[in-house]
């Protein structure tokens, strides 16, 4: 019997096995090789926390390949963390988990992460597929920065807490091109033809283009949306845009196949280690800002997840995460904490944006995110 296998998982596998083939089902369940477990909604803190997150989104020790903040959490609380880097794309991940969630079943995860510039945080809360946090266990919630206290999908932060925020702008490779600092240049400069990518995420690409059109991404009606979609579609038609990507623009950009990409801020800071000729800027017409939020899905253990959330809202822990992953931390006091050990990172405005930068950043209209016509139109732009 595999010690990593929890009773819950055994029962599940056994049950699933019985429906298809009883004996091998149980045998394999006993010899099971994958991680899993968790998924107990009862009031007690569990032994294991299953945490689904995006890749390259937590600190990793290059030597030991361990994750120091998770190890420290286990040492402190005796809760082992199974960390799954299984989210590559909000929609794709949502598509995978929505089946069981819609039937009121758990998904063997205690925390998962969705971005507020997608329609999914709103859907999760409205459909009741996520559970309320146990704020008694999260005294550190007082460290949440004011700007994040009341998002439209969860005005009182009953269901969610930010993991990190990030900015969407333009990255370019100086080996291939001069500065690319506007969406106009990205979409219409013939010198960049076939050498640029945009992000698949609607709010990132359309948002930046809305700004470039002189419209406001905070109020996206059909006209505003279609103006931006038309402009992007024209750039696809002319062969200007090579692809729409997730994180995968990074390899092509550092390798020189691409001149410029719509890109996320933290990625580029990490990429600079590989290629110092990469540059990133907020486009001159403005950039987008977004926040990834932790949720507790149905079936997840609320006390266990809440205990972990409290832990990452300690300024010292938040400082370590911010220094490692280079995105914008939502935790007050993290910068001061980091300044003690790493003044350079603490003064990096891409990680701790100053007021001047913040005025250039915009959020996408949350009401427009679930507009089915916009979603369908965007799919058509993505594949013509």
């Amino acid at each position, binding site marked *: 019997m595999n010690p990593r296998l929890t009773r819950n998982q055994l029962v599940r596998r056994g049950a*699933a096995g019985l429906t*298809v083939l009883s004996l091998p089902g149980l045998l394999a369940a006993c010899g099971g090789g994958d991680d899993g477990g968790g998924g107990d909604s009862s009031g007690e803190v569990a032994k294991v926390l299953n945490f689904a997150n995006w890749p390259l989104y937590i600190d990793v020790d290059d030597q030991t390949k361990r994750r120091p903040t998770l190890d420290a959490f286990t040492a402190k609380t005796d809760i082992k963390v199974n960390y799954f880097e299984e989210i590559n794309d909000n929609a794709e991940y949502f598509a995978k988990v929505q089946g*069981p969630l819609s039937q009121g079943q758990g998904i063997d995860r205690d925390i998962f992460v969705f971005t507020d510039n997608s329609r999914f945080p709103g859907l999760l809360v409205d459909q009741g597929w996520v559970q309320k946090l146990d704020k008694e266990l999260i005294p550190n919630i007082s460290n949440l920065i004011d700007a994040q206290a009341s998002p439209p999908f969860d005005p009182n932060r009953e269901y969610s807490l930010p993991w990190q925020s990030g900015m969407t702008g333009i990255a370019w490779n100086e080996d291939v091109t001069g500065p690319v600092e506007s969406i106009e240049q990205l979409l219409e400069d013939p010198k960049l033809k076939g050498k640029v990518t945009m992000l698949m995420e609607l709010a990132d690409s359309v948002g930046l283009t809305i700004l470039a059109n002189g419209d406001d991404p905070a109020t996206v009606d059909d006209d505003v949306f279609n103006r931006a979609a038309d402009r992007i579609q024209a750039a696809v038609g002319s062969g200007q845009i090579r692809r729409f990507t997730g994180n995968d623009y990074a390899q092509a950009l550092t390798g020189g196949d691409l001149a410029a990409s719509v890109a996320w801020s933290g990625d580029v800071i*990490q990429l600079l280690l590989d290629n110092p000729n990469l540059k990133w800027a907020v486009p001159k017409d403005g950039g987008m800002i977004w926040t990834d939020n932790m949720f507790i899905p149905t079936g997840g253990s609320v006390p266990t997840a809440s205990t972990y959330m409290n832990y990452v809202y300690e300024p010292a822990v938040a400082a370590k995460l911010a220094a490692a992953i280079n995105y914008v931390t939502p935790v007050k006091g993290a910068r001061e904490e980091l300044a003690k050990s790493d003044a350079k990172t603490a003064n990096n405005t891409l990680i701790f944006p100053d007021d001047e930068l913040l005025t250039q950043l915009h959020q996408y209209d949350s009401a427009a995110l679930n507009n089915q016509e916009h979603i369908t139109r965007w799919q058509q732009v993505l594949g013509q």
Partner: protein
Amino acid sequence: MRVKHHLLTTYAMLVIGYLMLPIAVVILFSFNEPEGRFNYVWQGFTFDNWANWDAPIGLRESMITSLEIGVLSTVVATILGTMIALAIVRHHFRGRASSNVLVFLPMSTPEIVLGASLLALFIQQTGIFVIGFWTIFIAHVMFIVSYIVVTVKARLIGFDRHLEEAAADLGADELTTFRKVTFPLIAPAMLAASLLGFALSIDDFVITYFVAGGEQTFPVYVWGIARVATPPQVNVVASAIFLVAIAVALGNVLWQYRSSRRQRGAA
């Protein structure tokens, strides 16, 4: 005439080269020592990736899942498929033609439709199916079975029924005949079929991707990691799978070669 001969040989060698090129690249880049995160440009030679093949988090687990599903689904599919093949070849019965059609249909359906339709079932019936390991298993058995049937059938059609009739004449009942005569005769075909099934299972991405949920097989892991930065260890695992498969196949080729020589020698 001679020139034409060489022309054909050259052409054949070029096509072989085309087939081998990506494989060579995969193996070559398993020895790359990338400076940064990306294993995209050749930087330098190292054995480190092979020594630390499971350094990327999740790679080992995905490989284990792939192997578990490969073995389980192949065993089940081989049993089910061999039974179907026996029934279709050895018996005449009502519904034989439509059974044949049912076996062939999955093979002539695009993988994306197979994956999508299974997902449609699984998300409707989440009370029965927990999307993950077992749904992958179910899907793999489903698409492998047809290939097993075809492979075993080909062998069954080829062999002499008189052996079985002789056994029956000697008083053996059906089960004994099966155990002593039929099974030893079809065992090599079952082995070949299960190797094919295992290879199909290990390699499958499209169907698995639809029905995997949070579970990761090796191809699903590669799909995810390729969006970020494919570590050279992925090439290591791919090269290792390739080398093992080639070794098994080469062994088979040599074995056939030797046994055919022995047969010729005996004759």
